[in-house]
């Protein structure tokens, strides 16, 4: 009896030792309440605001009719959706012009919203109504192992890998031609919840050293499967919610696919960052001198590999990359 005293509810319910067990239950309830508060506010981080460096790409600021008209990247997606819903037949561009405003008002009227022409969260939500995330089949049963992500911007797919083996592949939207998703090998450095705006319900930030890039949900699900974002990887909210908990901070994310045309005009030195450094690291790896992850940072590993190649090929000493090295490893313009 002593062994189970105090914590086991079934024993308490039998009416034995009612006073002491009642006190025990009270303590247990207080502890569980404290734990619940900690879990909600602390551990889950709900609602954690999207960090500023990620927020440069998407915005929850409403689109407002104005003169001159607002010009913003999300107008393009708005116009595409309105056109698909037969509310708009004008040019598809980033200008929130009067024709588009009229279409929005008409859409709002038909959907029991205030016909203000202001595109706010409710309007985006109404525009997305009826779009459901397609079910994704697992290629293999889920198991414990190292999780990594592989994103192919040509195929517009994100694959979750377990110990290097594909588990599930999800459709995504990636950057437009003028704002491409950064090709390279990154890590998830932060993650959090959102309330369903431009970042959807979940977001994960990547350690791209230039700009702010991440993987997140969206309130524009019709864009999934296209080149729509300003560089981030968009997923259906249902999909990112499905994988969110199994992806810890530090998860490796490899992005392959299209890359912008690069200009290797000036030398790159230790400390340089950017897509040119990714290309340099990639070319070094192809050449047999792996400088670690293609992380766009000209760090000590890249420097050591560049020095090795320079020394081996009899180029002048130093750890910098310049014209001769570019032609040697095949990144010349």
């Amino acid at each position, binding site marked *: 009896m002593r062994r189970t005293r105090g914590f086991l509810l079934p024993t308490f319910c039998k009416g034995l030792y009612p006073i002491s067990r009642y006190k025990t239950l009270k303590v247990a309830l207080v502890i569980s309440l404290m734990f619940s508060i900690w879990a909600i506010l602390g551990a889950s981080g709900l609602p954690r605001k999207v960090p500023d460096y990620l927020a440069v790409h998407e915005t929850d600021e409403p689109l407002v009719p104005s003169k001159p008209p607002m010009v913003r990247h999300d107008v393009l997606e708005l116009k595409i959706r309105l056109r698909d819903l037969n509310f708009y037949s004008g040019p598809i561009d980033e200008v929130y012009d009067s024709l588009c405003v009229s279409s929005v008002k008409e859409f709002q009227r038909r959907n029991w919203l205030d016909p203000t022409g202001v595109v706010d969260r409710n309007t985006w939500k109404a525009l997305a109504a009826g779009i459901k995330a397609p079910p994704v089949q697992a290629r293999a049963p889920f198991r414990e192992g190292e999780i990594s992500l592989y994103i192919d911007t040509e195929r517009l797919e994100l694959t979750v890998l377990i110990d290097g083996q594909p588990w599930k592949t999800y459709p995504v939207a990636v950057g437009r031609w003028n704002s491409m998703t950064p090709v390279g090998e990154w890590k998830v450095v932060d993650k959090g919840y959102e309330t369903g705006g431009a970042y959807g319900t979940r977001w994960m930030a990547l350690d791209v050293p230039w700009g702010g890039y991440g993987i997140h949900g969206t309130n524009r699900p019709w864009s999934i499967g296209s080149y729509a974002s300003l560089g981030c990887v968009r997923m259906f909210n249902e999909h990112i919610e499905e994988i969110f908990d199994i992806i810890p901070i530090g998860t490796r994310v490899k992005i392959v696919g299209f890359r912008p045309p690069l200009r290797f005009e000036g030398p790159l030195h230790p400390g340089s960052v950017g897509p040119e450094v990714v290309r340099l690291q990639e070319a070094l790896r*192809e*050449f*047999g*001198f*792996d400088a670690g992850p293609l992380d766009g940072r000209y760090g000590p590993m890249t420097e*050591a*590999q560049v*020095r*090795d*190649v320079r*020394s*081996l*090929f*009899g*180029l*002048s*000493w130093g*750890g910098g990359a*310049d*014209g*001769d090295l570019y*032609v*040697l490893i095949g990144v*010349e313009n």
Partner: protein
Amino acid sequence: MKAVNFLVSSGRNRGPRFGLAVLLAVNLLILICPGCARQMPQKSEGQVPVLPPGQEIVVWEMKQPHFPGSRPYEEEVQRVCEQFQQKTGIRVKLVFVSRWELPDALLKAREESKLPDVLFSGEFPCLTGLERDLAGILDAGQYQETALAAWTRGGRIMGIPSAILWFGIAARKDVLNSQQGEPGDFRTDPSTLNGLLRSLGVLPTSEAFMQIATHELSGRHRAPREIASFVSWIKMNVSESEQEFCLQRFKRGDIQGIYGVTPYIFKWLRISSEPGSSGEPVLVPLIFEKGDTGFGFTVPGYLILSGAEPKLKASAELGKLLAQNYGRWGARALGLIPARIEDLPIFTLESGFTREERSHLLKILDLTGIPLSPQDAGVEGVAADAGLDDLFTRYKCLEELAGVLSSYFSGNLIDDGLAEEIAHALEGNTSR
């Protein structure tokens, strides 16, 4: 069968027959044993001792470039290590170390008593002062004399030679064709070579050039004044003495060749140009200020740092396999001359050089005992006493020498002070 039965069966005459059988058996033994003896190696070549459980051989290798058409070097090395492991049961730990980080890594390993057992002493090899004498382990008859001499100090074999890595001039084919009527004359005619110098570029701070500058073709160390004289002669005679972007300018045709290339650059120039095009490079020997011509060379190899038997023997056996592997890979991928005599056909058949180029390169093999290498080959016994600190000194000296040469070729340093600056840069070496 009847004869056997007759010999072994029991009977009245069993005694003499048994004696006959013993005699036959002894005869057989005598016949078989010399045969066995002939099949036994002269030395314990190829035999790998058994190591105590849990021991492993640590190999420090260096990365090599991937060239189209040749297998990645890492794969080849891994294959050799795996085969050795399967065959002997000895675990091999393979680590690729950056050339640039080697001195630091070695120093750290020495402090932590975790030195590798087998160490690839790169394209520009150094002794560390910690290597073991392999004279009793290596069968000298299997190696090119020139290659073995590079690693021999007073009868001690300090490393396993893997290949002969040469330095020469890469020149555009069209320029050579326009300079002389008979193809091939340029290689023996100093005046033609002198004419060619005017249209060459040079990489004066490259290790290859610095080795050429600091050594005579005979392998002897030049004094600072002689180095200054050579460098000054290069500056005067080579038109494009700027160190920057030689490869770019060669590809564009702005320069007609590069003085002091390693096989790496030559191979790259060759595979990155259209076969048969005017920009295709041909290999030309170096020319020196006194009119001497010839290819410089150095001998990469493997050092065995394991302390005692039986690990020393096991490491040496693995080192031999790795050295042979580098020699073969180098012959195929780069056109190096393998150090093992038996692998010379690989150079002949698979290096991609013309017969003429090969025959010129193979003249290196006649220069027995005078390798152009940073191992102080001409100074008997010096390198054998070198330690890790000397490895650092060498790196530091080369770095300082590169700074002096860079200043000189860019015009910031004049002829008058050159010899002094070179002496100062090489102080660590020359004072030994």
